[in-house]
């Protein structure tokens, strides 16, 4: 019998309930359709609540869900109904604070999408296959914040062509707008 605390999924949805990033660790939702249905149910059940100052919690389909919102981003962590909700809350808080650190305080949908790689890495550093890997936001952010600790890719070492490519990209994007 397994007694370790288990996380069933982590969800990051936007203000319309659309998936920005999601990671499932249990077989409860085998298909993408099932996943989307679950996300929709979770979103519509929680959207009217105010989860901006404290972590909120609810129950749905024999699961416990803890959640927190900021700007147009909705963070959710799901666990089984027997799970200790305070453990789930600590996972959520770790995720939330780590994302906040990584996005340097500008936590909204636009920043999240622009730095989706960091969000994915963040998920990866918090939970491994349903098992809590780390809950300390500073540690998570440090591990996921690859660019800041990268010894080989300092800005000074970027080649001219790379710098040019970056500049060109920014230019085209601003022109397209």
């Amino acid at each position: 019998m397994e007694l370790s605390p288990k996380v069933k999924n982590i969800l990051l949805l936007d203000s319309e309930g659309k998936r920005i990033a999601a990671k499932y660790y249990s077989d409860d939702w085998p298909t993408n359709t099932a996943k989307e249905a679950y996300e929709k149910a979770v979103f519509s059940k929680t959207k009217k609540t105010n989860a901006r100052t404290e972590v909120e919690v609810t129950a749905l389909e024999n699961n416990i869900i803890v959640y927190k919102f900021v700007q147009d981003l909705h963070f959710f962590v799901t666990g089984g109904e027997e799970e200790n909700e305070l453990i789930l809350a600590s996972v959520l808080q770790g995720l939330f604070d780590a994302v906040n650190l990584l996005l340097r305080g500008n936590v909204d949908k636009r920043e999240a999408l622009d730095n989706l790689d960091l969000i994915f890495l963040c998920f990866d550093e918090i939970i491994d296959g349903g098992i809590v890997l780390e809950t300390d936001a500073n540690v998570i952010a440090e591990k996921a914040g690859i660019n800041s600790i990268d010894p080989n890719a300092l800005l000074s070492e970027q080649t001219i062509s790379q710098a040019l490519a970056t500049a060109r990209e920014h230019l085209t994007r601003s022109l397209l707008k």
Partner: protein
Amino acid sequence: MAQPLVKKDDDLDDELEFSPFMGIEKGAVLQEARVFNDPQLDPRRCSQVITKLLYLLNQGESFTKVEATEVFFSVTKLFQSKDTGLRRMVYLIIKELSPGSDEVIIVTSSLMKDMNSKIDMYRANAIRVLCRIIDGTLLTQIERYLKQAIVDKNPVVSSAALVSGLHMLKTNPEIVKRWSNEVQEAVQSRAALVQFHALALLHQIRQNDRLAVSKLVGTLTRGAVRSPLAQCLLIRYTSQIIRDMGNHSQSGERPFYDFLESCLRHKAEMVILEAARAITELDGVSSRELTPAITVLQLFLSSPKPVLRFAAVRTLNKVAMTHPMAVTNCNIDMESLISDQNRSIATLAITTLLKTGNESSVERLMKQITNFMSDIADEFKIVVVEAIRSLCVKFPLKYRSLMNFLSNILREEGGFEYKRAIVDSIVTIIRDIPDAKENGLLHLCEFIEDCEFTYLSTQILHFLGIEGPNTSDPSKYIRYIYNRVHLENATVRAAAVCTLAKFGFMVEALKPRITVLLKRCIYDSDDEVRDRATLFLSILGNDDGLVETDKDSREFLFGSLEAPLVNMETSLKNYEPSEEAFDVDSVPKEVKSQPLAEKKAKGKKPTGLGAPPPAPVSGFDAYERLLSSIPEFATFGKLFKSSSPVELTEAETEYSVNVVKHIFESHVVFQYNCTNTVPEQLLERVNVIVDASEAEEFSELSSKPLNSLPYDSPGQAFVAFEKPEGVPAVGKFSNTLTFVVKEVDPNTGEAEDDGVEDEYQLEDLEIVPADYMVNVGVSNFRNAWENMDPENELEDEYGLGPRESLAEAVKAVIDVLGMQSCEGTETVASNARSHTSLLSGLYIGNVKVLVKAQFGMDNRKEIAMKLAVRADDQSVSEAIHAIVSGG
């Protein structure tokens, strides 16, 4: 919303514009992935492409095998780059692509190199990736490195190896088990998370060795654990040990309780909660043990953090089901939670209050709930309605205010499920509390005047047809029913016609008027309605009818369909229109699966918010129908009582059998529910041989074997006994299951022709005095007691010997008698030294029995009981005393 102005403008310009993934397409991204093959790698660009790939996968896009393989191969090229950021993304995408075993070989050498890298981040992630994708043979190759990693001085590396070990224990347990020395060392780690992961793995490795586990827990509970998560684990392991030992140690202090109790003073809230929950879930927890846990939960109730309030009220809700008295101290805190912002918390608080509330607080509570009901979602309302139903069963005297509440909410807006829950509750109350009947029926009548759900209307009409004619003034319902014939759709109209006919048939005075009404229905626009009206008219018109036809009509109107509906449907489908009329008797009556009621009880019920205790609906009707459909038993008369299923086999044996005892006036039928749990076998001619040598008053009459018992589809065999009429004969029966077993080819599912005869010993079965007692409640015990002849009262005193608690003695007496406790008197106040239980029941021969049992406990926990019995028949009172003195 302190967003910079510029951003806002962008948002307005084009909602989607700012998404870097707008218009992203799989084909294009796969094209882009070719940059991985460039000789001059651009790490930034490669990272972006990987992010896009991950985005696609994350949105639910799937890659074909070819696509995935192609991407995987080009990704492996990226190991050439020294860019750590890119490497990190490479690890991630490899895990997401989950390559096949033939492809894995390409990356293993790169990953193994990273596993021994100087950069900690590489080591940790390479381990996680490798362990995710490799199989047993490769695992042995890297085992040496993993063992080193477990004791690595960097906690990130160590955790990575331990968590990977946890995952691989499922696929390669024998390898992981060899690491226990290293894991043991890691348990001592100073890093919190390492300790947590190591403890989890060590426990998993040793979980089958009880002694080792209890030694491990014993050492650690003395205080070497730093991490709150690890402490939570330790609490879970401890309560598992307590559970396992439960049966062995009876006396004295519960081992490890002190540890759990000390965790209530831990500084981390998650540990406090875990410990409090563990204590409340202890088997047979005493109120002394509960108190400290309830106290900390009570503190949580007023926490500013919603999660803490939720956790506390959720736990208390569960405790309230078994120990309502222990929770009453928190009632004031919970009442303030009714107005909590978080609706989940408010609903849990209400349902808990409904469980713990005493009779006097019901009205006040209902007032509070009424305000609350208007602004919660349907699913919460259903939970509340169910809680109210059980409250009503508990306090029958309060049915008036509860019924009023239900009828009020019935009139308000709501979805189908919610309305059905309310209607079900009212129906249950009407059934259980005779006094509530007329009032409740009128509420239902009013509801169908304006009911948008066809299903509910027909159900209520049917119910009215059965209950309505027996009320004091049946005529007042006619108006409501006949209105349906004018205003509703065909289905409801047809149901209303049936109900009218039932009134006409049962109430002689109404018959002429009903006939007039039915005559109007024969011009209905719908065939079915006209047919029914015509049919009932001819039945009712049969004024000077013989007794014979009268009985037939009654059977037709009130009897249930003899054959199961499914069989009926199949038979009708197979019937080809011809000269020969369809013969109802040709429909097979054998029930294919177990009765519905039983399935419901066994199946995992959805236990949402504060799962309510199972509703007091018994499978009695289902049993009665089943038995009367079997010709051999049809002559036994009315079924008096059916016991709940008694298991005759251990759990997880090849064949699982339980038995239901059906008691008739002068017969007993054993219903053996058999399940074959071996997929490779088909059982035929399944029979139960019963040896009744220890049950002298019983003689075997007939048995009904089960023809065939395929894998996993339950079937029933029956054995019937005759016994002296009306006599509560007791005895012991030993059972043997006999059958012919045939091998089944797992591929084709076909059974071989030849079978082997075999038998299987089942456990013994007993008929006890409680089997002759039906637990029927009375709404007002005092009245009922006064109304019984005091002449027939028999009183006696008994010593019950030393017991653990008063509550245990009360429960034992109730169980032995098999009676219904009234007015909530089955719950004993904690620390009470005396208690009175009021019990009621119906003894065989339909003799009403009431019992007042007074319990007292002295200092040595010796319990004495004074038992006063009143029954319509003195001999029955004597029999009750005989049961107690015998049990």
